[in-house]
């Protein structure tokens, strides 16, 4: 990765890191605001009609029967169009702007983080697929999701990356070279054969498509990363156990088992061979193959971590709302809590935590819109073409072109090769910041809610304890908060310091 040697450019870059939202003011399409409001209205209605009434009931059900799968919820979310809401119209989706996803996830998580995950994790899979800019496969899978919505059969997408001995290691390319990975992808005639296990795969049992990250050479995973789309029902692919989690119970964490599982070449999303060819075609490529792999991972995490920050803001808000309700309704020591100064200060602290968590993901989404994965979609001409082109024309005239290899090449050239190192670092650094800041605020708010509510806070039927159980996972997945702090350091601090190398001490 190119280092920024000149102090002047480093200073300029640091300034741009700090004023992302100011720069976005002129460049974000106006319709984004209207769309976001519409998306939020739908999420609020969904909360009111489905999530809130069922949150505790479903959590209780999962405690009673840990193997229960909430298909009915997935069906309802599918019926209401939440699984295509953020898929571009180019690929048959409803085409809402992707930054609005964080707002929708916040809204849902304010009532139940597990159910928010049942929607949000699907977009983690979609993001992974999109991060590779394989337009043909994006067209195939996203249109399959849209078809699933049309016929009333949910076809959601998951991401399968974590392995029994490699969690943190597979989230960072710098660590990948030392990872004990076991999921091997072998090149065979007409496709690939997978052997290995993946664990903690959110929504695994409920998903139709699994974006699987495997490795051709287990000794050199950083140089031989392969990403494939595996469909449920494929021979050699089965589900193992469902984890018994402390919270977010309605969202299954699954084990995926691959035993000589054949995947046709058309479902290979990207591999190092393709990237290698691209590097050679480009003549003067910006990056090496492992660096492109790293970039794709950063792309995915820069969007998914904004989503986690959305969940975390939601849970922080949910805890705040429970505490506020309790303070208004409850007398302690002969006086309503809300009339006691210490309780008011505590509620103000919680409100602040929600507001700052939200600001952090908004800033990350601006960074993604200006410099990251959403850049092409948020570019005003592209935004309005995708928004205003009649769907029929999109489906019959534009979509067939997406199957051409040249289109994938062009998008990779623009989106991957066109992204500067400092832009990648800015999006990734901000994403990490919002992820760990918001999840720390979230957990703090849950603890404050329990403090304020006393014994009522630890009772299941009051709802606050569920927020606490749900929230803890947000500090762990998508890279632990410690890993995210290190990533922030690497991306926004260490990059301009001479002699500082990532993950070396």
């Amino acid at each position: 990765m190119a280092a920024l040697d000149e102090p002047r450019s480093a200073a300029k870059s640091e300034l741009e890191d700090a004023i992302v939202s100011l720069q976005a003011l002129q460049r974000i399409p106006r319709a984004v605001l209207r769309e976001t409001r519409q998306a939020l209205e739908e999420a609020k209605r969904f909360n009111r009609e489905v999530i809130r009434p069922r949150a505790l009931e479903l959590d209780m059900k999962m405690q009673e029967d840990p193997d229960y799968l909430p298909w009915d919820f997935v069906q309802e979310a599918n019926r209401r169009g939440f699984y295509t809401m953020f898929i571009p119209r180019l690929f048959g989706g409803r085409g809402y702007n992707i930054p609005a996803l964080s707002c929708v996830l916040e809204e849902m998580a304010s009532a139940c983080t597990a159910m928010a995950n049942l929607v949000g994790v699907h977009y983690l899979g979609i993001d992974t697929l999109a991060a590779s800019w394989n337009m043909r496969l994006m067209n195939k899978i996203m249109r399959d999701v849209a078809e699933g919505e049309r016929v009333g059969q949910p076809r959601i997408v998951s991401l399968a990356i974590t392995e029994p001995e490699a969690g943190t290691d597979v989230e960072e390319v710098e660590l990948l070279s030392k990872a004990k990975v076991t999921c091997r992808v072998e090149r065979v005639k007409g496709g690939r054969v997978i052997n290995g296990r993946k664990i903690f795969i959110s929504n695994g049992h409920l998903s139709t498509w699994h974006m699987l990250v495997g490795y051709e050479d287990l000794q050199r995973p950083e140089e031989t990363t392969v990403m494939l789309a595996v469909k449920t029902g494929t021979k050699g692919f089965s589900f193992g156990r469902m984890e018994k989690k402390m919270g977010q119970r309605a969202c299954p964490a699954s084990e995926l088992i691959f035993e000589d599982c054949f995947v046709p070449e058309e479902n290979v999303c990207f591999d190092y061979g393709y990237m290698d060819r691209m590097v050679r075609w480009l003549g003067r490529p910006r990056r090496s193959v492992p660096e492109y792999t790293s970039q794709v991972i950063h792309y995915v995490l820069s969007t998914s971590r904004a989503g986690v920050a959305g969940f975390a803001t939601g849970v922080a808000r949910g805890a705040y709302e429970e505490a506020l309700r309790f303070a208004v309704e409850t007398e302690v020591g002969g006086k309503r809590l809300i009339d006691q100064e210490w309780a008011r200060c505590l509620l103000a602290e919680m409100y602040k935590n929600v507001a700052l968590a939200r600001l952090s993901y908004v800033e990350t989404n601006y960074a993604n819109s200006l410099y990251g994965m959403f850049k092409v979609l948020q570019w005003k001409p592209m935004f309005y073409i995708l928004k205003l082109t009649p769907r029929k024309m999109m489906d019959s005239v534009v979509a067939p072109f997406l199957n051409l290899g040249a289109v994938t090449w062009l998008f990779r050239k623009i989106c991957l090769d066109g992204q500067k190192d400092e832009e990648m670092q800015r999006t990734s650094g901000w994403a990490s910041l919002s992820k760990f800041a918001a999840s720390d605020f979230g957990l703090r708010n849950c603890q404050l809610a329990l403090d304020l509510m006393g014994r009522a806070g630890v009772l299941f039927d009051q709802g606050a304890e569920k927020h606490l159980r749900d929230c803890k996972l947000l500090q762990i997945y998508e890279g632990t908060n410690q890993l995210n702090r290190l990533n922030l350091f690497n991306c926004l601090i260490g990059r301009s310091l001479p002699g500082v190398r990532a993950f070396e001490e």
Partner: protein
Amino acid sequence: MTSQRSEEWKLLERMSCEFALRELRTGREERDAHPFAPLDLDLLRKGEELGFFSLLQEDGEEAPANLRALNLILENLSMEDAAFAGAVFTHSLSQMVILQAGRADVLDKLKAKAAEGGTAEGRLPLVAFPSFDAPGETARGLRAEKQDGNYLLTGKADFVVLGSMAAWALLPARTMGVEGFSFFLCPLGGEGVEAGPAVLSLGLRSCPGVDLVMKGAVSSLVGEPGEGARYYGSAADLLAVSAAAMSLGVMKGSLREALQYARQRVQGGREIINWSEVRMILSQMSLHCRTGEMLLAAVMQEMAEGKPGWEVSSRAAALQVQDMACQVVSDGVQLLGGNGYMRDYGQEKRFRDAHQLKVLMGHHPLRKLEFLRLAEDIDSH
């Protein structure tokens, strides 16, 4: 303390360690599934046979030593399963209130009654108590009326811990014409008492609370009418440090599990214990544990010496250690990553238990506010 007693307590402490490792570690997950799995009453009976529930049976000179033994046992048990320790604590709190009311004879009678099989079928010779509430709050929902030398209790008591399995409950209630509240001992499992289902809570699930609806339940007054707050206050002074001991045990269990995991788990080509940020977190956890140990030791020393103000120290220890425990258990889950969040390692249970233990003996912020008043009282004397 006689040397014979000292040996007895050492033996008891050792037994509690072994009991925790052999009996509490295994089957912890299954027990924690309550109310979706049955309670393991046999385990509680085993604990009773080992004497964990009768440490406060006697009052007098041995009391500080008994309390020290109780705290060690609660700490050891909580390292593996704070729910079991919760049962010991709740029964001990009931006993302590009765002792503070000057009614050691009542405890003897209960013991004798249990020995002759005079308790409701299937119930253990334990005394339930609403140990997560300030009794003054619970007393608002219960009324006692005198009739033929006994009292009839009516009303509702929420979240009475051990209420589904204990033979008796010690409940605070108000009586007409009496200022303040009084404590009443009420047999459970008989007429006039309806116990609801186990109330699902964040932690300590195999030490459940139930809501009791009293419909003229025959009960006996413990101590003097209207003196409940005084008895409870004295009992709380003594047992606040025991509540702290439980939180300390949970912290130490979490640290032990995290250390073990960090030595084995490899990421980035080295055991994670060799990552300096991981070491920093472990150090912080260890620091909290050591601080908790020192706090408890200091309070026990003050108690043994009868040093003025030991009551405030006891309450301070509880507030402080309960706070620290919530930080430690959160780090304890964090260090195990995704594994820490799953039920397999016990860390997530410790996380839940520690947060519930913070509410033991009442609302944490209100206890803090009350603490200042107590501290001011002590200072002014």
